[in-house]
């Protein structure tokens, strides 16, 4: 795998606050990497440093094997020489140019001749579905169309990679979903290397080959969407990536290789899987995804008696709220349900491999 982008020790301070703190990341050719994190965690700043729009205080950035930024060596390649495309949150479509002129601009700057330029712009506009709009003034476009123009402009010069800063956040929900699908298939077809910044986990999970989760300027976990979902290494990631039930519990003892018995303060006890070493008596978090639980009318192994407090039908699935001892828990059930109704008693089945222990960070 060819490495397209390599970032090490990237650090940025504004005054005395460190906004990006020792960030490392790698992006391979054709990979779609999403940087995910809550508002203000430094995603945009990281992206802008890769683009060359902001200067880091420390660290290094290599693009296509060329070092473009290293404050320690006083090296800084300006953005126009990095050969990176970027789609801005506000799209940054130039209002004094037509759609064609906007998209042709990178080629004009690179002195690509008239005929070739026309062909390539037409080609890329066709690909983003704007073949007909070429001569319209850019101000006459809708939000979704502007977004496509911005994408076309970032693609037209075959950049080493494309950076996206929350490009869909200004659009309504429906359009956002459609463009997400289009973007993903375009990226697959063209083998585009991309870094995409968002605070929306659905977007991240759907688009990403790999997600980098950031918190307060630091990378807290990197992995495929599945890895982050299955084996979050912190409560923060578990909460951010999914709508999981998270129990605050104490390890009581071992229950076979890879499993421990845990108990919550209100008395709930269950068997959970762990991947990192834990000691009895240690406080941990236990993650249980709503769709990993089963509701049965009958008792069985690893079953707990609960009372159903709410039922919500959501198309093909049902979201069930239930009370297990003192705690409300969310469960999603696909397909047929046993005959339960609000207020009835039932049994909650949680298989040990579906309850995962996350150690607390050592204070």
């Amino acid at each position, binding site marked *: 795998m060819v490495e397209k982008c390599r970032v090490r020790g990237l650090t940025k301070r504004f005054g005395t606050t460190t906004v990006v703190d020792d960030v490392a990341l790698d992006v391979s050719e054709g990979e779609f990497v999403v940087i995910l994190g809550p508002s203000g965690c430094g995603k945009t700043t990281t992206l802008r440093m890769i683009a060359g729009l902001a200067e880091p205080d420390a660290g290094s950035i290599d693009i296509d094997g060329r070092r473009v930024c290293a404050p320690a060596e006083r090296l800084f390649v*300006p*953005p126009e020489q990095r050969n990176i495309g970027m789609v801005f*949150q*506000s799209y*940054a479509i*130039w209002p004094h140019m037509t759609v064609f002129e906007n998209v042709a601009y990178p080629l004009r*700057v690179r002195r690509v001749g008239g005929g070739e330029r026309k062909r390539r712009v037409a080609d890329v506009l066709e690909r983003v579905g704007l073949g007909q709009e070429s001569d319209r003034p850019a101000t006459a476009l809708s939000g979704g169309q502007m977004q496509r123009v*911005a994408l076309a402009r970032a693609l037209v010069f075959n950049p080493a990679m494309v950076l996206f800063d929350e490009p869909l956040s200004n659009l309504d929900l429906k359009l956002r979903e459609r463009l997400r699908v289009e973007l993903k298939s375009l990226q697959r077809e063209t083998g585009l290397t991309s870094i995409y910044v968002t605070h929306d986990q659905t977007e991240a999970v759907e688009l990403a080959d790999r997600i980098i989760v950031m918190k307060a300027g630091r990378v807290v976990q990197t992995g495929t969407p599945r890895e982050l979902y299955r084996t979050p290494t912190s409560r923060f990631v578990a909460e951010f990536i999914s709508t999981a039930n998270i129990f605050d519990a104490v390890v009581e003892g071992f229950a076979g290789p890879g499993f421990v018995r845990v108990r919550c303060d209100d008395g709930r006890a269950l068997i959970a899987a762990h991947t990192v070493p834990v000691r009895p008596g240690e406080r941990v978090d236990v993650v249980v995804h709503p769709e990993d639980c089963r509701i049965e009318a009958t008792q069985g192994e690893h079953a707990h008696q609960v009372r159903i407090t709410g039922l919500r039908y959501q198309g093909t699935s049902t979201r069930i709220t239930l009370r297990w001892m003192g705690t409300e828990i969310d469960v999603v059930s696909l397909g047929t349900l046993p005959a339960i109704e609000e207020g009835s008693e039932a049994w909650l089945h949680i298989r040990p491999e579906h309850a995962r222990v996350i150690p607390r960070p050592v204070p």
Partner: protein
Amino acid sequence: MNRIGGRIAVAVLAAVLLVLIVLPVGVLIIGSLLSDPPRALQFNWSGLTFSNYAAVLSGQDFAALLGTTVAAALIGTAGALVIGAALAWLAVRTDVPARRLLEAVAIMPMFVPPLVGAFAWDVLASPRSGIINIVLRAVGVGVSVNIYSLGGIGFVFAIYYCPYVFLFMAAALRNMDAALEEAAAMCGAGPLRVLANITAPLVAPALLSSGLLVFVLLMEIFAIPAVLGEPGGVHVMSVRIWELIGFAPPKVNEASALGVLLLLLTVTLVILQHRFLGRRSFVTVAGKGLRSQPVRLGVMRWPLATLGMLYLACVVVLPFSALLFIALRKNLFFSSLAAMVRTSQFSTRQFTVAMNDPVVRDALSNSLLVSLATVGLGSILYFAVAYIVHRTRLPGRRLLNMIAILPVAIPGLIIGLGYLWSWISLPVGLYGTVWIIVFAYISQFAPQGVSAISATLVQIHPELEESSRLSGAGLFTTLRRIVIPLAWPGILASMILLLVLSFREFATALFLYTSSTQVFSLAMFDFWERGSTSLVAVMALAQSALLLLFITIGRMLTRRLAADQP
């Protein structure tokens, strides 16, 4: 406000604005078509004639007069655009050293009255005895500068009017979504290319609009060409109007005709400017407040900062040093550098003389009275207009707004002339009192006053007011308890602006004063015409110091208020 009350309020305000603004201009226009001066608004209609226009237009030098007026304004506008735009770009978009200072410097001339600037540059660069020329001769350089020329006047225009361009451009650059420029960089364009392809076209509407504004102001201005133009034979329309009335035999009707022609020009230009302002849609506001990396000037950082300081020298340091120098000299006859700096020639006697001069004292108290009255009465009128225009749906509110902004296009001199025509012979006894000056000022500053107060009012969310009404408070209680307290910092800032404008105003009062109602600027101009240069220098320094004091107090008050408010 109930419907009837609201309508009565609109009608009363409309009547006030009509009398203050429309009446004088109307009378002026009628007067320009008559053969005799009007008496007590009794027009001698049988004398209806175009002969005044014929006399003006066929006058042997009308073409030259118009040409000079336009040329001087064009030179000044071009200079103001270059200086203002360059300073704005440096201050907002680059890493030039001391950006904050540069920004403060760029708007400093707004606080220097044009009349004071003109006096100072007369002292500095008059061809024979200007200090700069004396120094140049002493150094033995074979060149000299002549401020009495078209170029010289254009230069003074440019340096004192570029703040308008600066403010427009700085706002445009600041409001522009930085991502528009960054996107070009990501497309591979270098900094100069970004400036040419993206930044310049995007701020072009603001540039054009501010250029037109400055051009109008320079077509109207009286103070600078009156001081610097006459000695060198550079004649412009505003000064000619004054001469037609001031020199015997007075040709009041002809002056009016020339005034109407000037008015036509300025009105056309203002309409053009509003067209461009209306289409300023290019300047897009960023979605997020992320500020971009400033443009790196590299080795040019310090040279460009020096240019900024050179500008400071031209508008503040040199002029005020020259005025101070003159104010401290015992006599003004020196022709060599050595004689110029001889210490035995300095004393502070002039300051004492000026302070004890009854004319100066009267002028100062008149000016303070006129300014305070203008601020007091004007603010109430402007607030009422702004409130009705922005906070009610009453019929006629647009008309009120239109009349109130009309004086943008009316030169102060012309307002003054209209007032002279309207009131000189009416038996109400307004002419000859300071009040006619106050009313003329209130008309002249209506656009600035109304728009400053409007800007404050529109920032107060209507729901704040509506909830007060729903709580059972009437209109006046709501105004007193909610609107005015919330708008107070803005209103106070508008009042300071009005105070500064009226204290430095000159041309509007030119035809309206008598020996007992002379205001400070007029007294200064009078002394200058009679050659009392030292006294003028002291007065100019005093006026500038007072303006600075007003502004500083205003800043402190508004800042304290802003800090108090959550």
